């Protein structure tokens, strides 16, 4: 989930912040499996995607 360049430098419980486009179930799962935390935006309406 995390770019390979960066992964080795993160600590357990490091927070990863990204916008809503990568906010998908499989990505969030990968972050949790890596023992990292995340902060992201949530797409509330379908129409938000076009903004």
């Amino acid at each position, binding site marked *: *989930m*995390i*770019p*390979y*360049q*960066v992964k080795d*430098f*993160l*600590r357990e419980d*490091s*927070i*990863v*912040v*990204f*916008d809503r*486009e*990568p906010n*998908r179930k*499989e*990505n969030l799962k*990968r972050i949790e499996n890596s023992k990292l935390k995340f902060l992201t935006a949530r797409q509330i309406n379908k129409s938000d995607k076009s903004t």
Partner: protein
Amino acid sequence: MPNENLSFPIGTIFTVKKYYKKLSFSEILGKHKKRGRNINSLMEALLSYKLTENQSITKAATWINREEVLDTFNLDSFEQRTLYRVLKLIGENREEIIADVQTMIFNTFDFKHININMDWTSFILYDDKCPSGKHSYSHDYQPGKEQITAGISKIFSPINVPIGMTVHEGNVERPDSLR
């Protein structure tokens, strides 16, 4: 009144030289070019230019190729294509260079946290010479142009140090670039 005075930002140049030394960029880049022009002098000059005016490589070559600037970086005048050759060399060795820079950054600074921001943006290419350029969905309504997507990771405030950069063909779906 027009005059022949020349101005360039000596403070920026000193800062570039200071951190170039502190982060051992001479060793990191020097190992990829041992002959010909000094890659480190060229890169110090190019970094100084990009932190000052940040325009094209062509303009960077013109900016650097002034007697006083050349003296500051111990350079002889050079052709524009020299800068392109240096950048090509860096691009060809980018994986190793980025890894070396990362290692140096983490060995030099004791970061209080390693929390990161990640983001991506796509660029339209106005030429078709870039091997990574690819036709794909254009947010900018230019479907006829090729694109690349660049992603960057940085340790967030108050540290604000970039630690990773990726380039992908076309306008990739952001989640797919999160590998």
